[in-house]
């Protein structure tokens, strides 16, 4: 059959000559190659938990709930992140800011409970894009492994950024 392109390559399979059939030269050659790796090649492994590779700039890791310049939580529990989340990983319960709590929360409504289920989250970053208050960013580390499902539901204790001057 005429080939459409001219890229056809005719494979010739010559019968093996004596040395090729004797296996041994080829085996010795292979042994030499592996020995070279054994002796001279450095390993390329990154010893992960101790040693980390640099993340790229747009890496999306663990979420963090940000604070503003005065150290107040920015989130206003509007629920837009939960709404935009394709994996339905976010739940929250909002509460009203009491007088005297102005140094804690920026808006008069805030998230009393804010939970992300890291097993559901697909790290798409849509919550980050949806947030009108620039309160949530996926700028953290890789989520560590754990034994129980319940330990993957991260609450505010893990998500909220550490207070400013402490």
């Amino acid at each position: 059959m005429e080939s459409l392109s001219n890229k056809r390559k005719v494979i010739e399979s010559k019968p093996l000559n004596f040395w090729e059939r004797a296996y041994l030269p080829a085996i010795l050659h292979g042994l030499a190659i592996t020995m070279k790796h054994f002796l001279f090649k450095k390993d390329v492994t990154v010893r992960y938990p101790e040693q980390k590779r640099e993340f790229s700039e747009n890496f999306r890791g663990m979420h963090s709930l940000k604070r503003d310049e005065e150290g107040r939580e920015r989130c206003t529990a509007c629920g837009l992140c939960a709404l935009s989340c394709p994996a339905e990983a976010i739940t929250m319960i909002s509460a009203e800011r009491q007088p005297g709590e102005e140094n804690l929360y920026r808006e008069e409504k805030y998230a009393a409970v804010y939970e992300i289920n890291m097993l559901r989250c697909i790290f798409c970053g849509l919550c980050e894009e949806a947030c009108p208050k620039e309160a949530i960013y996926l700028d953290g580390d890789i989520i560590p492994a754990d034994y129980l499902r319940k330990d993957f539901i991260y609450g505010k204790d893990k998500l909220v950024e550490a207070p400013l001057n402490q």
Partner: protein
Amino acid sequence: MGTADILIKFALIVIIFLISLLIAMYSTYAERKVAAFFQDRVGPNRAGPFGILQPLADGAKMFLKEEIIPTHANGFLFIVGPSLAIMTACIGSAVIPWGQKLTIGTHVIDLQVTDINVGVLYIFGVVSLGVYGVMIGGWASNNKYSLLGAIRAASQNISYEIAMGLSIISLLMTTGTLSLREIAEQQHGWHWNIIYQPLGFLIFIVCAFAETNRTPFDLPECETELVGGYHTEYSSMKLGFYLFAEYINMFVSSAVMATLYFGGYNFPFMHSLGLSENWVTILGVIVLFAKIFFFIFFFMWVRWTIPRFRYDQLMDLGWKTLIPLAIANIVLTGLWMTFIK
């Protein structure tokens, strides 16, 4: 034989048994480390410094895993299989001379469990028995893939035993004895048998790879065609025994190769160093173990270099290449002995 002698023999047996277990244990670790180095990786390095506690961790894992015996398996034979495998692997080391005689006070300690005058044949017998563990296990699992794996193992072992026996016959023609102790003694200093029997050694080592079911001849286990191999249905420590037996076999066949062809405990200039007999003996034991470790390393080196043979190629190699070569070697040796020597 006094009580003291019997006690010494007993201690020797226990020590050799423990050493083979220890070496088999650390061979599993070495295998993974060596594989890693050949592939530019690090290998196990979490359990203990450099991961040297890894075998213990593996052992604990094996013991703690769930013990599964398939419903339609033959319960008794299912357990006999791995026990037989590890038992035959362990008794092989009984005739290997680990060193010359040690003299402590009035006691002369022979560093060999027993010097029977058919030592070489004994090793053969043990090797040929080894296939029962695999066959019984594979059949008792009541699984066609296990059965196929077992049958592959059996036919492979039987085929390569012939070539192995023939390659040894030419060695026996030059040494004139079947006792491993005498063979080792004849290779005093530099007169290693590898110099007289290079072709025989080549055939022997290829057959040793096949008998221990190591790559490139690890046909009995094959994920792509047989799901797992003869031990598909095994779990927990019974699987552990099968894997362990492989490593003990590797250790024993390395020891046999070192003794038969590489001078055993002999090393060059052993008597011109001016050391006392006992020190020479101890050095000899160390040298023997160095040789054994080299062979174990060689087993691993080959494993991480050469891919698996196809089954018909394996049989072709065994029957159409190795056996004629071994017979030619016998003829050559005979000619050499009658005309040149």
